[in-house]
């Protein structure tokens, strides 16, 4: 797991998403880990003592933390999870990237290339079998965006057979970082070319989800069936405190996304799904690798034996636009492929019943009319009896890209702030124009697919053989 710092953003709207993201992710994972379970994300150090009473010093995260500022990483290393992170697996600097992709990518990229490679190789050595890299970063800043995408190239060259999964936080509409459109578009080009799979997320959607939960919890409508402790609280605070630290709760959602993604690889189930299967099933063409994700249910219920009505509701919610982790409405766009990863006491018949039920309201591309990938993992997440992660390769991701391009063009036309980038060695105007055409090409692909939406599905003439 590589977490290039989004630290510059700490100065603005997003106080330390890195810190909080790292915390709940590993925290939840530690709660999920049983002695002897699959050491996918965390390796055992020394004599591998069991986890008891908060002593987690024998587990080490398979992670490298990168930030061009020290504040966030230092906070992690002094926080409750300090023993989980190997203090040697860090790369930090002091000056930060100034919200400048070029600084992150070109300056720090070349400066730290050797060190990055060295830490990578060290991490890889500890793995019996390295399956994939998770890169977690934001698009709008300088370090996460610039250095983060530089990393992708390094990973591709050094470990060409290992999958690169990227969780990218896209800037929301009211983003205060003025140069975020530049940073995002330059980063998009790298994601287009060097990532195997991207899970875009935006803060506004996360915030909306948290608000909804708050509304439901506080309205008392569901009465005693709602526990205050839920999917979106860290064990440190109750849900009520979320207004003070919204990013805690928001990042917890992302942490849970990654937990659900890896659950079938970590725990047993009747229909397993590894990470390499995600890319195989959900990426029909190399350039169309952006997956919209949704997690349900968002609150725990007191009953462990949930009546089927509630179970079915979990499936319905997964397709609603209010549950997506990015502004997107998959139901009214075109599906290229869809994956449902279920955890907990859910059987194949429940899964099939819901697919049959929901299929008519969804539109799938003509060559993949039954494009469903499913998995069943027996172990539910902490505090829930079951959960569902839906990953969709759907044209509903297009508006995000279109908006990004528009915001970019507005800035670029005026050449605002451009000099900050062009003064960096290796940066020219062509970098921008190439990035813009890369994004435009991607948007065109989605447009072409959308155009096929209402066309009737025809069977193509088959090979004829002599009898």
């Amino acid at each position: 797991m590589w977490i290039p710092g989004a630290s510059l953003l700490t100065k603005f709207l997003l106080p330390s998403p890195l810190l909080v993201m790292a915390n709940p992710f590993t925290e939840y994972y530690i709660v999920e880990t049983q002695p002897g379970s699959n050491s996918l994300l965390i390796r055992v150090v020394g004599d591998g003592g069991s986890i008891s009473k908060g002593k987690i010093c024998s587990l080490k995260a398979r992670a490298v933390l990168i930030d061009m500022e020290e504040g966030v990483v230092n906070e992690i290393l002094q926080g409750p999870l300090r023993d989980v992170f190997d203090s040697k697996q860090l790369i930090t600097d002091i000056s930060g990237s100034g919200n400048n992709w070029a600084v992150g990518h070109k300056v720090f990229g070349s400066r730290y290339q050797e060190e990055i490679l060295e830490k990578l190789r060290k991490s890889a050595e500890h793995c019996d079998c390295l399956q994939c890299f998770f890169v977690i970063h934001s698009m709008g800043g300088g370090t996460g965006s610039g250095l983060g995408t530089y990393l992708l190239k390094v990973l591709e060259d050094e470990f060409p057979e290992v999958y690169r999964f990227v969780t990218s936080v896209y800037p929301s509409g009211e983003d205060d970082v003025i140069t975020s459109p530049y940073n995002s578009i330059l980063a998009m080009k790298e994601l287009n070319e060097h990532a195997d799979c991207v899970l875009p997320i935006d803060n506004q959607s996360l915030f909306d989800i948290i608000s909804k939960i708050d509304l439901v919890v506080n309205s008392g409508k569901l009465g005693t069936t709602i526990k205050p402790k839920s999917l979106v609280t860290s064990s440190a605070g109750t849900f009520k405190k979320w207004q003070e630290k919204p990013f805690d709760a928001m990042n917890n959602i992302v942490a849970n996304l990654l937990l659900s993604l890896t659950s079938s690889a970590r725990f047993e189930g009747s229909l397993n799904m590894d990470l390499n299967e995600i890319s195989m099933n959900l990426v029909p063409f190399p350039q169309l690798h952006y997956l919209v994700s949704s997690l349900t249910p968002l609150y725990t219920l007191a009953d462990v034996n949930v009546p089927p009505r509630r179970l079915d509701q979990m499936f319905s919610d997964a397709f609603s636009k209010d549950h997506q982790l990015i502004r997107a409405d998959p139901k009214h766009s075109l599906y290229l492929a869809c994956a449902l990863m279920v955890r907990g006491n859910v059987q194949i018949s429940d899964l099939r019943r819901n697919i049959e039920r929901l299929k008519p309201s969804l539109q799938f591309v003509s060559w993949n009319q039954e494009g469903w990938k499913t998995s069943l993992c027996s172990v539910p997440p902490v505090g829930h009896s079951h959960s569902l992660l839906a990953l969709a390769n759907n044209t509903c991701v297009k508006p995000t890209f279109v908006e990004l391009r528009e915001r970019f063009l507005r800035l670029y036309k005026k050449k605002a702030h451009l000099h900050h980038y062009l003064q960096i060695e290796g940066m020219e105007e062509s970098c921008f124009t190439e990035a813009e055409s890369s994004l435009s090409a991607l948007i065109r692909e989605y447009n072409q697919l959308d155009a096929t939406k209402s066309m009737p599905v025809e069977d193509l003439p088959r090979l004829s053989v002599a009898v």
Partner: protein
Amino acid sequence: MSIVTVQLGQCGNQIGFEVFDALFIDSHCPQRLSSKRENEAYQASCKERFFSEEENGVPIARAVLVDMEPKVINQTLSKAAQSGRWKYGQHSSFCQKQGSGNNWAYGYSVHGPRHEESIRNLIQKEVEKCDSLSGFFIIMSMAGGTGSGLGAFVTQNLQDQYSNSLKMNQIIWPYGTGEVIVQNYNSILTLSHLYRSSDALLVHENDAVHKICAKLMNIKQISFSDINQVLAHQLGSVFQPTYSAEGSFHYRRNPLGDLMENLVPHPEFKMLGVRNIPQMSENSLAYSTFTWAGLLKHLRQMLISNAKMEEDSLKESCITDVLEAQRTVVCEKRIDWQIRPPLPGLPSLSKMSLNKELHFNTSIANLLILRGKDVHSADLEGFKDPALYTSWLEPVNAFNVWRTQRAFSKYEKSAALVSNSQFLVKPLDMIVGKAWNMFASKAYVHQYTKFGIEEEDFLDSFALLEQVVASYCTL
């Protein structure tokens, strides 16, 4: 003679466990209907076929477990060991860590050659434990990456290594509506390769077994475990010992050989299916009685109308002899009794239309396996009707029956029909069609070419399978 089973991938291993368990439990089932001597002969035969002896007396399944990730194999091994009844050999499994990613090309072109030797050694060891080898079962799914791709590779290997032994692949046909998005690609690649290297493909359809669980077994929340158990029951009803021509106490020595001889007269036609009745929950069974006439009538109609299961009426409880007639009437409404074999003298239906709802399922060969009380009294004339069969085989050659007095599992009478007929044409055609549509847009093809399966290979597979469909259609 013994059968060595190779369990591949998650599906293969999960099913394999259920199969051995079903075989063991049935062979140790307290049998009120058979004599002690009969039972012992049955047990001994079952043992010889499927289990080998260990020092402390716990039988060891004659099986090799292969998977490219460790979780399922670990689970399977421990489930068997914990059962206390039988177990797998300590060193009979081979696994890796990274899986096949649902990628047939990865299973076939990467894992296959890389692990060829290790897997071959494991199989060799198991074969050496057999006094004499009847052949191999290879249990695999078509939809995934390991079972399908590595399974195809291993089958090819077995053909080279053990050219005198028979290979029967137990293939799990995926649900029509996705378990895996690229399942149609994986399926056509698997089938086309197996058609060249396997001796027979015994196909089990998830959709069909699912319906049996839902409608006949009355299971509300169906799990893969339930499905696998029904499947294991079907296999058990076919492969548990049956009398040879010599009669009582003498069980058939070469089940695979005999089966192939009966059912696969021509290499162009290798696809076999199983139907077995009755299938029902324990509760319903307590209130049901059956006659051979009734069972055989339904089985025959299931065959010619291509039904996959007895329709729901038989599950209803409180069936007694008095109600038998009434029940039969109710049943008659559910199975498609309109379908009749073509009348003699009229031109036979030469080409089956795939789109027509009503069509008659022509067989190449059928094997009926009857187990239980009064088995010798069963009247089989219905199955000898030449109208059921294609014109180039006489019923005397096309139809065979194996009878055994000893009942199977908890059923006083049970009948299994293994048939080589047109029953799989429609599902096969559908899979080929869907794969073709996807291939035309080139979706996902880059994932296969990455590992050495080129567009040419796809086209070869399509051509072979279109040929198979056409051949079966013109029976």
